[in-house]
């Protein structure tokens, strides 16, 4: 590793991505509300996207669309993976939300502990 400031600016993106990931993780495991959990899951997935895109970036490069004036392009492969993942992510979130709505109709609540109590009393 080079000098400390170089190290910091070189890894800041990854650290922030990890911080966001852990924030999402925390929301998922510490909150009982199902919709809040889904929002946390979305945070988590966006942070993964940021990590992937950070890995594909090259200093001084430009977007991976061929042009006559530029010759250094960022890595297009992570972009392809993440592009589809975003749409799939929304689709799966929608399934989660639909489940939540059904749970609310059946149990009258979307809090995890209340659902458990109702389950046990059945």
């Amino acid at each position, binding site marked *: 590793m080079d000098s400390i400031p170089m190290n910091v600016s070189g890894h800041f993106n990854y650290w922030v991505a990890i911080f966001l990931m852990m924030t999402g993780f925390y929301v998922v495991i510490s909150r009982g509300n199902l919709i809040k959990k889904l929002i946390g899951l979305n945070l988590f997935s966006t942070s993964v996207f940021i990590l992937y895109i950070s890995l594909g970036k090259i200093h001084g490069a*430009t*977007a991976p*669309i061929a*042009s006559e*004036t*530029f010759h250094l392009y960022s890595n297009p492969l992570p972009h392809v993976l993440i592009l589809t993942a975003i749409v799939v992510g929304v689709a799966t979130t929608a399934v989660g939300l639909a489940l939540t709505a059904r749970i609310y109709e059946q149990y009258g609540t979307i809090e995890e502990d209340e659902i458990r109590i109702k389950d046990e009393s059945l």
Partner: protein
Amino acid sequence: MLEAIYGASCLAILAVMGLALLRAVLGPSAFDRLMAVNMFGTKTVLLISVFGFLTGRPDFLDIALIYALVNFLGTIAVLRFFEGRKTPACYDEPAEEQKE
């Protein structure tokens, strides 16, 4: 010369974004938050446009264009879904706060 101006504009837009973010975090009413989100959308349009010129590749204005077109969908959705509610969930109601 122009590069510096583009950079300065980017910084200014980022500063406005920061202020809007503060408003969104602080609240107090849901309408303030909604306004902040709306404003954030416009600033995103501007940032993406200016950033394209800063990096010398302004062919990606499509992203700004889609924000300009669809950004008000969020506002409509909020107004629509929480219009008929007697106690709009989007409020900071003192009564609701006391319940806890």
